[in-house]
C-alpha cells in the first residue's frame, strides 16, 4: 500500500514542481506560436496525468495510471470555412506498474486497458461551413441532444465508451461518429437540425478482468470459460449501406415574447441503431455416453434498429410565480420514447430469451444558485421498459443490460449535484450523488485547484454502494481515490 501511495504522491509532486518552473511563461504556447506562424491557425492542448487507487483493498492496487496528450487545431480559411481537428493519445501504465499482469502480452494488455481503439485517437475532425442561415459541419464529431446531466435520455446520437463506467464526463467518453450535421435558421431563435450518419460504432465495454468490466460481461466470460461449453459469437452490425444510414431531426426554439419568453424547447427524432447489442442465444446440448454433455452456444449480438422520438425543455423562472416564489429556479426536462428496442429476459445472470421492448424514459431537473455561490442541481429520472412480446412473467423478468440483473418495470434515479468555489474561482469543490431505487448509490466528491493559468490539480473519490445486480452496486468493491494533474497551453 505504502509503495503505491508513495508513487501517486511522487507523480503528483513531480508534475506540480515542474509547473512552478515552467508555467509562468507558457513555454509551449509561445513555442507553438513561434514555429507555426500561420495567422489563421490556432492550436491549443493539454497534458494530463490521471492516477487512481483502489480504496477497498487498502489502496493496494492502481486502477489507473494514465497519461494523456490532447491537441486541438483550428484553421480558418475564410470567414465561412474552417477546419477543426482534435487528436487525443493516451497510455495507461497500470498493468506495467502492477506486476501481477506482467505475463500478459502487449495485445492482451491492450485489450484490458483503456487504449485508443481503431481511429479513436482522432477525437474530432470536421469542416465547418457557415452561411447566414445554415451551418454545415461535416466530419467526425459529437452531437449532444437534451438537457439532462449524467443520464442519457435523448443524448443517443453517439455511442459511449464505458471502459471507465460513467465516472468520466460524457464529453470525454462519447464516441464521435462521421456524419453531416446541418443546422438551419428558420426563425430568429428557431433552428432545424438535420443529421445524416453513415457511420456506426457500438458502445465500448471493458473486458472481463478490467476494473470496470460490467457484470454482464463478466457473466458471459465465466460461462464461456467452462470446459464443457463452446461459445461462438456472431456480431450483427449494420453494414455500411445506404438503407442502413442513420438520420436525425431536431427542431429547437427559444420563445422570445409573452409569458413563456426565454423558454427553450426541442422536438427530436432519431432513426438509429442501438449501440448496446441485444444478445440472442441458441443453445444445443450434445449428450455423450463417454463423458459430461457438451454444450454449444451460438450467441448472436444484434444492433437493433430503433426509433427515438422525444423532446426537451428548459425554462428559468425569471419572474416569481406568486411574488418572488420560484424566482431564480431553472426547470428542465426531457422525454424519449425508444421504439423497437430489444431486451433479454430471464433470471439473475441467466438469459432465457430476448423480446422486443419499447422504452419510455424521462427526466425532470431543477437548478438554482443559493447563497450567491452554491450551485445546486437535482434530477429525477424514470426509465420504463414495456415488453411488446409475451414471455413467462411469473418465472422471469426483463434483465438490466449492464448487470444482467432483474429489471424493475419502473427504474427511478435521483441525482444531486452541489458545487461552489473559493479564492476567486481557483478552488472548486463539488459533489455528485446518484441514487437509484434498490438502494444503489454513487457518491463522487472532488476538489480542483487552479495553480495558475496553465496548471490544474484535482483530487477526489468515487464511492459505489449497492447490490451487484444494480447500476453502481456492481462496482461496490471498486471505490477509488483519484488524482489528476493537467497542464494546458
Amino acid at each position, binding site marked *: 500500500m505504502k509503495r503505491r501511495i508513495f508513487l501517486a504522491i511522487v507523480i503528483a509532486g513531480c508534475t506540480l514542481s515542474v509547473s512552478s518552473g515552467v508555467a509562468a511563461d507558457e513555454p509551449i504556447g509561445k513555442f507553438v506560436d513561434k514555429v507555426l506562424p500561420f495567422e489563421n491557425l490556432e492550436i*491549443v*492542448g*493539454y497534458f494530463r496525468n490521471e492516477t487512481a487507487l483502489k480504496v477497498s483493498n487498502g489502496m493496494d492496487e492502481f486502477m489507473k495510471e494514465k497519461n494523456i496528450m490532447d491537441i*486541438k487545431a*483550428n484553421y480558418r480559411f475564410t470567414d465561412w470555412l474552417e477546419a*477543426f481537428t482534435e487528436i487525443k493519445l493516451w497510455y495507461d501504465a497500470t498493468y506495467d506498474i502492477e506486476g501481477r499482469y506482467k505475463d500478459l502480452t502487449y495485445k492482451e494488455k491492450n485489450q484490458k486497458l483503456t487504449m485508443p481503439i481503431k481511429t479513436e485517437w482522432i477525437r474530432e475532425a470536421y469542416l*465547418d461551413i*457557415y452561411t*447566414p442561415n445554415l*451551418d454545415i459541419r461535416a466530419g467526425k464529431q*459529437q*452531437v*449532444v441532444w437534451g*438537457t439532462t446531466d449524467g443520464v442519457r435520455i435523448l443524448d443517443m446520437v453517439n455511442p459511449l465508451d464505458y471502459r471507465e463506467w460513467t465516472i468520466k*464526463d*460524457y*464529453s470525454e467518453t*462519447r464516441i464521435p461518429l462521421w456524419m453531416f450535421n446541418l*443546422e438551419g*435558421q428558420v426563425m*430568429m*431563435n428557431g*433552428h432545424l437540425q438535420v443529421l445524416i450518419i453513415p457511420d456506426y460504432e457500438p458502445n465500448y465495454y471493458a473486458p472481463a478482468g478490467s476494473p470496470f468490466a460490467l457484470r454482464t460481461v463478466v457473466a458471459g466470460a465465466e460461462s464461456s470459460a467452462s470446459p464443457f461449453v463452446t461459445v461462438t459469437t456472431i456480431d450483427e452490425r449494420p453494414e455500411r449501406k445506404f438503407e442502413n444510414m442513420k438520420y436525425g431531426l431536431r427542431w*429547437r426554439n*427559444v420563445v*422570445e*415574447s409573452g409569458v413563456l*419568453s*426565454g423558454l*427553450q424547447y426541442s422536438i427530436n427524432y432519431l432513426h438509429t441503431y442501438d449501440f448496446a447489442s441485444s444478445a440472442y442465444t441458441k443453445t444445443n446440448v450434445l449428450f455423450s455416453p463417454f463423458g459430461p454433455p457438451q454444450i454449444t452456444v451460438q450467441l448472436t449480438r444484434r444492433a437493433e434498429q430503433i426509433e427515438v422520438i422525444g423532446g426537451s425543455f*428548459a*425554462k*428559468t423562472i*425569471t*419572474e416569481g410565480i406568486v411574488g418572488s416564489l420560484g*424566482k*431564480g*429556479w*431553472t426547470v*428542465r426536462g426531457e422525454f424519449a420514447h425508444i421504439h423497437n428496442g430489444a431486451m433479454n429476459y430471464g433470471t439473475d445472470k441467466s438469459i432465457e430469451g430476448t423480446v422486443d421492448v419499447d422504452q419510455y424514459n424521462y427526466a425532470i431537473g431543477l*437548478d*438554482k*444558485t443559493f*447563497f*450567491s*455561490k452554491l450551485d445546486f442541481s437535482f434530477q429525477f429520472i424514470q426509465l420504463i421498459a414495456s415488453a411488446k412480446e409475451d414471455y413467462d412473467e411469473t418465472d422471469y423478468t426483463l434483465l438490466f443490460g449492464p448487470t444482467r440483473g432483474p429489471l424493475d418495470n419502473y427504474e427511478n434515479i435521483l441525482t444531486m449535484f452541489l458545487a461552489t*468555489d473559493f479564492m*476567486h*474561482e*481557483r478552488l472548486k469543490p463539488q459533489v455528485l450523488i446518484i441514487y437509484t431505487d434498490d438502494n444503489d448509490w454513487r457518491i463522487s466528491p472532488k476538489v480542483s485547484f*487552479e495553480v*495558475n*493559468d*496553465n496548471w*490544474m490539480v484535482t483530487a477526489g473519490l468515487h464511492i459505489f454502494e449497492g447490490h451487484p445486480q444494480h447500476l453502481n452496486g456492481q462496482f461496490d468493491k471498486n471505490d477509488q481515490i483519484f488524482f489528476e494533474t*493537467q497542464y*494546458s*497551453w
Partner: protein
Amino acid sequence: MKSLKILMLILASLLFLYQDAESLDYYKLYTPAGGMTADEIMEIAYHNKYSLFAQDYDLPDSEVFYIDPSGFTRTKLAERYRIVKGGEDNIKYKDLVVVTHPTQVKGLAILTWTYENPNKDQDVWLWIPALKKVRKISASEGDDAFMGSDLTVEEVSTRRFEDETYKLLREDTFAGYRFEQTGEMMFEGRPCFVIEAIPTKDHWYYAKRTVWVDKGFGGSIFEEYFDKNGDKFKTIFRGWDWYTDGALRYPTQTAIECKDLRTQHRTVVYNRQQNYDKGLDERKFTLRMLQRSKW
C-alpha cells in the same frame, strides 16, 4: 364606479412610475447638466454604462487580470458583443461573452437577454465547449463574484437604476486615481457629481456607495462601497474615453480597476478595440451561434 376610478388612478400612477424609470430614449446620447436631480444623473450614468445610446457594441479584446496581494496574477481574455433591442419583445438588450483564454475555459460562451421589466431576471444560456451542450442556467445572484473577480455580477451587468435610491451629495472636483496597474494618475481635476446610492434590498452586500459621475460625459468614474458599519471595503475605478468613428462620438469604458480593501486582491479589466454601430446581426445572439464556439 368609484372603485373603477381608484383602479384607473392606481394603474395610471404605476404607468407613470414605470415611464419615469425608463424616460431616456434608446439610441440617443445624453449628458448631465447643472440643476439635474440625482435620479436624472444616475439614469444617464446607467444609459451610458450599458451603451443604450448605440444600436450595437462589440469588444473583440477584453483582458481581465486577477492580482493577489503578492502580485501573483491570473489572466482571462474574452470577447463581448451586445445588441440593443430597445424594448422590442420587452427585451432591453442581448449580450454575448466568449472566453478565449486560458485554455481550460477557452470557448466558454454566455448569452444573456436583459428585459425591460425591472422585476424580471435575465435569461442566461451557457455553452461549455467541452460538454458540447447549451445549458439554460439561472441568472447569477447579484452579489456573486463575476467570473471569480472582485467585481460582483450586478456591478458588471445586472444592476439597474431601480435597484437603488439616490441623493446628490455635492458637486466636486475629482482628486484623480492612480491606476495601480500602470502607475498613471487618471482623471485628475475632473468636475463631477458626487451621488450617494443606497440599495433598495435589505441586508445587501453593501449598505451604501458613493458614485463620482463625470459632468462631461455622464459616466461613473469612481465608486466607493461601504458596509453597514460605515467602513469602506471596496473601490471601483472606471476609465473612459471617447469612441469616434466619422460622425459617431460615444463615451466608452476602456479600463476598470476594482480593489477589495479587505483582502487587498484586485481585478483589472482592459477593453480594447471597441466598436459601436457596426450593424451586428441579431443572429449572432442565438443558440446556433453559441455552438460555433469550439475548444
